[in-house]
């Protein structure tokens, strides 16, 4: 119950018919931490995100951000999906400010800050480009900038790099880490990729399905900043095999 916890889930559960999507889950996420969630399809990762973001109403339990109950309230967190969801008729700048435009009157300040964010994180030369002219990696950067621009402390990232090729993906991971560090946000990150989870996170939550629940909570004690070398270190591989064991020991053949 320390004040350091940004997000607290208390006995959160959700079923769809007879399927238990998420069974009684309680969880604390420390302010400023990077927490990944790995697990097979159907383990309730997305249901969890949908409830935290306010899209879905839990059957029981509550969601607290900074000790405020935000259950079923939208507009409290930043949310980024695998698809970049950039609107083609707006420029990079217009897409970054889309969140503001969707929720209130767009101010000069919003735009000024969007320009700042874009310039700080390497999109300065593309401010007036339309999304169609950007590569997949660039588009994901814009999508993340849009998520950042709304100033929510908690960011939910749902497999944002799932559609990128390995090379771009690694660049994006490093970039994400630098953005996270500089912007001092708290990140909940869903991924299928165990390497990605270990590489990025302070903590990895392993989930299993039927019923969806958190089966392991592993603190990743790897030095930051993390580099290419991190990926091949023995400690890294130790975490990796621990997680893989959890995943494959309990699910599947």
């Amino acid at each position, binding site marked *: 119950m320390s004040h350091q916890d940004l997000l607290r889930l208390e006995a959160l559960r959700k079923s769809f018919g007879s399927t238990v999507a998420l069974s009684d889950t309680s969880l604390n996420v420390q302010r400023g931490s990077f927490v990944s969630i790995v697990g097979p399809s159907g383990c309730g990762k997305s249901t969890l995100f949908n409830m935290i973001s306010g899209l879905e109403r839990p059957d029981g339990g509550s969601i607290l951000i900074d000790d405020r109950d935000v259950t079923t309230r939208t*507009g*409290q967190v930043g949310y980024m999906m695998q698809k970049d969801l950039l609107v*083609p*008729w707006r420029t990079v700048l217009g897409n970054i400010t889309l969140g503001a435009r969707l929720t209130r009157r767009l101010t000069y300040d919003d735009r000024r800050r969007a320009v700042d964010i*874009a310039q700080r994180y390497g999109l300065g030369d593309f*401010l007036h*480009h339309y999304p169609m002219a950007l590569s997949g990696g660039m588009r994901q950067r814009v999508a993340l900038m849009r998520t950042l621009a709304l100033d929510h402390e908690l960011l939910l990232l749902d497999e944002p790099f799932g559609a990128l090729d390995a090379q771009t993906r690694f660049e994006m991971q490093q970039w994400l880490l630098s953005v996270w560090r500089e912007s001092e946000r708290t990140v909940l990150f869903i991924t299928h990729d165990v390497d990605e989870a270990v590489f990025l996170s302070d903590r990895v939550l392993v989930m299993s399905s039927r019923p969806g629940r958190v089966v392991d909570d592993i603190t990743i004690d790897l030095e930051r900043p993390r580099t290419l070398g991190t990926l091949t270190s023995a400690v890294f591989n130790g975490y990796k095999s621990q997680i893989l064991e959890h995943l494959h020991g309990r699910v599947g053949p």
Partner: protein
Amino acid sequence: MKSRLLRNVLGSLLSFVLVMGIWQAIVVWGQVAPYIAPRPLDAFRAISGDWSTLWPLTLWTLRETVYGFLAGAVLGVVFGIVMHKIAMLQRVLYPILIVTQAIPIVALAAPLVLMLGFNLGPKIVIVAWIVFFPVTVNVLDGLTHVDGDLLTLARVLGARRWRTFLVIEVPAAIAPLFSGLKIGATYAVTGAIIGEMAASSGSSLALYQHNANANLNAAAVYGTTLIMTAIGISWFLLIVSLEFWATPWRRRVTARRRRIGGKHK
């Protein structure tokens, strides 16, 4: 970009010359009598020779086309939005809208004249009748096919429905809207002419042609057709230019005007 425009203009010119050439060839080699089909040049001469009469009639037909087109476009957009927003209404209206298009316009013209008289009224209704349908269908289609995840995202961000509508759904429907408008633009002048044929008070382009036809003045008949075609093409090109201007993201890398943050270099 410039050279592509040049090539397009050149291509259009070439096809124009080709069509005129074929026309000339058929009339000359086929030894077609001038009161059956004129030579192209005679048709143009018929236009220039009676320009003082034809020009006001052309403006009048253009006015019918434009007014009707605008009415149809507005109606089409409103129908598209309302039908998108109220599912029940869509179920009720869609069959009716399809029926409206199945009615032969010519059959529609006579009762319209009885109700609305001989001036602008029936022409505007006929043109709007033709134009609104493709607009409605395309706007509805555009609104229906907005990425559902984008709408979810808007909800997550805490956007109210009408803001989501204005910021996401409306712009998403702009490209389809123009598809509908372009179809409407090609048919609009036809509607105006059908209206004029059904009834004209005083004179009209259709009546001028009718008289020329009765007088076996084929050059003037073809000349009037050329004018009608020119009205249709001009209006279509105007809509295409408008589309170019309104949807820069479909062909440009960067936005045209740099607003805030232009000093980023």
